[in-house]
């Protein structure tokens, strides 16, 4: 893309972009051209599972202000949960996600 500003972080979670949930293992965060948001550049987050192919993707495209508010809100929610002692800061290992048939 035209800015090439992109970072990847390993994550643990589940995502949904159709009728079924799937395991997401990476989050790709970029500031570059969005596909649908009517801006030249946007803060894009793709929750993906690279092992399942390009279609295993949950995408959001955010305005800069929306992205900043989201970051603050996530931090605030986690801080509140931590304060109440309910954070479950542990790995999800009990039940593996069903995943999908590899698309590539």
């Amino acid at each position, binding site marked *: *893309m035209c800015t*090439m500003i992109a970072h*990847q972080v390993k994550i643990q979670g589940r995502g949904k972009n159709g009728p079924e949930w799937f395991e997401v293992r990476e989050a790709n965060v970029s500031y570059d051209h969005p596909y649908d948001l009517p801006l*030249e550049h946007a803060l894009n987050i793709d929750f993906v599972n*690279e092992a399942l192919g*390009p*279609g295993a993707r949950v995408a959001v495209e955010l305005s800069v202000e929306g992205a900043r508010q989201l970051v603050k809100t996530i931090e605030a929610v986690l801080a509140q949960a931590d304060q109440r002692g309910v954070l479950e800061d542990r790995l999800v290992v009990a039940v593996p996600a069903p995943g999908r048939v590899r*698309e590539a």
Partner: protein
Amino acid sequence: MYQTDQYEGMIAETVGMKGHNGDVINAYLARPLGAGPFPGMVLIHHAPGWDEWYRECTRRFAHHGYVSISPNLYFRDGHGSPEDVGAKVRAAGGAPDTRVLGDLDGANVYLRSLPYVSGKIGVFGTCSGGRHGFLAACRLKGFDALIDCWGGRVVQSKDELTPNQPVAPIDYTKDLSCPILGLFGNEDKSPTPEQVNTHEAELKKHGKRYEFHRYDGAGHGFFYYDRPAYRQEQAVDGWKKVFAFCERTLR
């Protein structure tokens, strides 16, 4: 200019071609019907992917009498919707320049192997494709005209260089082997008008044949009718300039 009593026909289809390292990748080929000889055109898709706009653009060049091929530069990144594959490449910091050049060279060779293609071949690209087009016209042999539409990051500072894009294309300007048509929007952030000035100064310094047009009221991607960046008046004028340039350099 098309006349209403003129016969017209084309074939457009997906083909296989040899790209970088001899890998067979897919490509979209559109050609006018007839024995030719027709000039050729290699179309370099933009960073968002090998998408419908590029298929239409490939057919557009065929409609204007060019045997046109658009290689899938993301072939090795997997298959799915163009958006999903494009997003994967975006996360990887774009396609490696070396691989892209190998694929573009393969597209050139493929066109030259066709019996109805004349000896003249152009290269057209938008966005990252404009940048790749400039690299191709500097680094590869066999291109007779370049159309660079708002190619970003031709001018790169050292801290913008990456393993996938290790050299700023502007550094190869002295090796540019064909005339270049550049179309830019004055409200673009990549390339900025200042970067276009820098690019133009370098072309001038090396005595290259160039024709730059800069449009007020337009930013990045003003040909894309499916994006809010579309600017009707500037796009219509830009397309006229593209085909006038092709007629002068490739016929």
